[in-house]
C-alpha cells in the first residue's frame, strides 16, 4: 500500500496532505488550505469520545502519509496521537500541536477550540505551516486566511462580540470545563466551582461540597443560564439539568466535537452561540 499523497508530493500541483486528530481543527485547516490541501480528520463521529479514543490501523496509515499533522495535545489526545506519529517516522511530516502553539501543558484546559483568541492563534500557526511546506503558494494561503477570518468567521466573530457586549458579567453555571474557555471569551461569570467542571470533564468523582454548592446556586437562582455538554451527561449532570429546568433557569447545550458531523467549524459554533444568546436573552429578559 502507498500512503495517500506520497506519490504526488513532488509535483507542483500536488495538494498538501493534512491530517487532523479532531475534526474541529480539521475543518479550520481544510478551509485555510482551500484547493491546495487535502484534509482528513481522524475523530469525526460525534459519538466518539476523544478523551478515550483507541486508534486503529487505518489511523496509523493516515498519519503515516501526512505532510502536516495537527493534534490538540494538552493531554487531550496524548494517549494515542503522539505514539502513532513516533511509531511511523516520516522526515517530510510536520506536526503541529495546539498546546505548544498556545503554550499550554498537560493538566491545563484542553478545550481551546472554544476560546476565540486561541482559535485565531491556531489559524495563524496553520497558515504559517502551509507557507513553510509550500512556499510557492504562500500568497494563496495568505488570501485564504484573510477570507476565512473575515467572511467565513464573520458571524462567529459578530456573535462573540454581541454576547460579550450585552451579557458580560452574567453569572452562569456549567457541567464541565469545556464551557470555561467559552465563558472566558464571552466575559460570562462562571459560578460553578472549577474543581467540579474538571472532575466531570475528566471522569472523576466530584465532591459532595461542590455538588451541594451547585445545588444551592441553582435553587437560589444565582446563575442565569446552565450550559452542559450533551455528549457527556453523567447522572449528576442530568440531576442538575432537571433541577435547573424546575427552577426555570434556561438550559443550553454544547458538544465536544462537530455536531452534526458534516457541519463546518463556524456553522457548529454559530449554532451553539445562537442558542446560548437566546438562553441569555430569556434569562435576563433583554
Amino acid at each position: 500500500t502507498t500512503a495517500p499523497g506520497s506519490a504526488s508530493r513532488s509535483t507542483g500541483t500536488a495538494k498538501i496532505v493534512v491530517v487532523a486528530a479532531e475534526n474541529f481543527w480539521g475543518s479550520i485547516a481544510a478551509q485555510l488550505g482551500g484547493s491546495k490541501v487535502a484534509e482528513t480528520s481522524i475523530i469525526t463521529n460525534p459519538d466518539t469520545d476523544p478523551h478515550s479514543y483507541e486508534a486503529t490501523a487505518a489511523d496509523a496509515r493516515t498519519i503515516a502519509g501526512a505532510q502536516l499533522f495537527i493534534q490538540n495535545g494538552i493531554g487531550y489526545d496524548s494517549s494515542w496521537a503522539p505514539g502513532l506519529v513516533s511509531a511511523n517516522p516520516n522526515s517530510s511530516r510536520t506536526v503541529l500541536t495546539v498546546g505548544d502553539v498556545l503554550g499550554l501543558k498537560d493538566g491545563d484546559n484542553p478545550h481551546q477550540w472554544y476560546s476565540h483568541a486561541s482559535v485565531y492563534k491556531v489559524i495563524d500557526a496553520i497558515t504559517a505551516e502551509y507557507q513553510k511546506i509550500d512556499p510557492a503558494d504562500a500568497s494563496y494561503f495568505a488570501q485564504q486566511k484573510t477570507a476565512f477570518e473575515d467572511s467565513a468567521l464573520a458571524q462567529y466573530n459578530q456573535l462573540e462580540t454581541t454576547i460579550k457586549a450585552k451579557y458580560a458579567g452574567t453569572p452562569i453555571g456549567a457541567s464541565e470545563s469545556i464551557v470555561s474557555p467559552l465563558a472566558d471569551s464571552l466575559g460570562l461569570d462562571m459560578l460553578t466551582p472549577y474543581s467540579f467542571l474538571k472532575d466531570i470533564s475528566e471522569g472523576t468523582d466530584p465532591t459532595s461540597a461542590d455538588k451541594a454548592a451547585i445545588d444551592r446556586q441553582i435553587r437560589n437562582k444565582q446563575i442565569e443560564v446552565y450550559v452542559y455538554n450533551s455528549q457527556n451527561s453523567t447522572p449528576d449532570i442530568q440531576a442538575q439539568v432537571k433541577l435547573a429546568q424546575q427552577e426555570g433557569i434556561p438550559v443550553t447545550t454544547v458538544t465536544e466535537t462537530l455536531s452534526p458531523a458534516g457541519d463546518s467549524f463556524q456553522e457548529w459554533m454559530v449554532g451553539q452561540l445562537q442558542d446560548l444568546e437566546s438562553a441569555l436573552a430569556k434569562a435576563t429578559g433583554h
Partner: protein
Amino acid sequence: MWSLPSMVNAFRAGLAVAILAGVIGWFMVLRRQSFAGHSIAVTGFPGAAAAVYLGLSATVGYFGFCIGSALVIALLARGSGTGVGERAHSSALIAVVQAFALALGAVFLDLYGGFLSSTSAFLFGNFLGITDEDVLTLVAVAVVVLLAMAVIGRRLLFASVDPAVAAARGVPVRALSVLYLVLLGATVAEVSKFTGSLLVFALLVMPAATAQVITARPGLSLLYTVVIGVLVTWFGLAWAYFGNQATGFTITSLAFACYVLAYAAKSVRRTLRQGRPGRLEVA
C-alpha cells in the same frame, strides 16, 4: 448535614447498601469468590454500554450483564462440589470471561460512543445524588435479595463449607451456587448504581474479610460484617461531607483501616502466643 436532602438519602441508602453488601459479601469471602464477584461487578460496564447502544436503559444492561456473567461463571466453573478449594480453581475461567467481557465492552462503547466520562459514573457512582425513588428501589431490591438469602442462608453455608457432604444430604449445591452468584450479580448491579464498581467491591469484601479475621463463629461474624459495613459507610459519608472528599475514598479508607487493624491485632496476638523459648507456658 441533615439539611441537605441528598445527604439524608445517602445515609438511608448507605444503611441498605451496607447490609445488603455485607450479607452477600460475607458468603463471597467464605466461598473465596472475590474474583468472581469482582468480574461480575466489572461486566456491568459492557452491559451498560451494550444496553445503551441497543436503545435500552442502562439499568437493563447492568442487571442483564451482571446476572448473565454470574450465570456463565456459575455454570461453566468446574467443581461439582468436591472441595472448598475447587471453586477457587475456576479462577482461570473467570479471568477469561472477564477479559472477554471487557473487550466486548470496549467494542460497544466504540459502537455507541458513550463518553468514557459518563462511564466514570460507572466507576465512581453517585452516592450523593440519590433521590427518594432511588432509595425505594434500592430498599426493594435489598429486601428481595435479603429474603432470598434468609431462605437459603443455612443451606448455602453448608454447601460452601462442605460441598461433598451437603450434596449427599440433598442440598442442591450446584443450584445454590448459581442462585448465589445471581443474587451477587443483582446486588452488584443495584448497589453499584450508587457506589460505582470500585466502592461496591470494597463494601462487599472488606467488612466481611475483617469480620472473618475477628471470629470464626458464622452467625457472629455475619453480624460483625453488617455492623462494620454500616459504621464504615456512615462515618465515611460524614467524613466526605465535612472533609470535602469523594465518598469512594473515605468509605474505602475506613474499611481498609478496619481490616488492617483486625489483621494486625490477630498477628500480634499470634506472635505473642507463639511463645519464645525463654517464656514457654507449661500450664
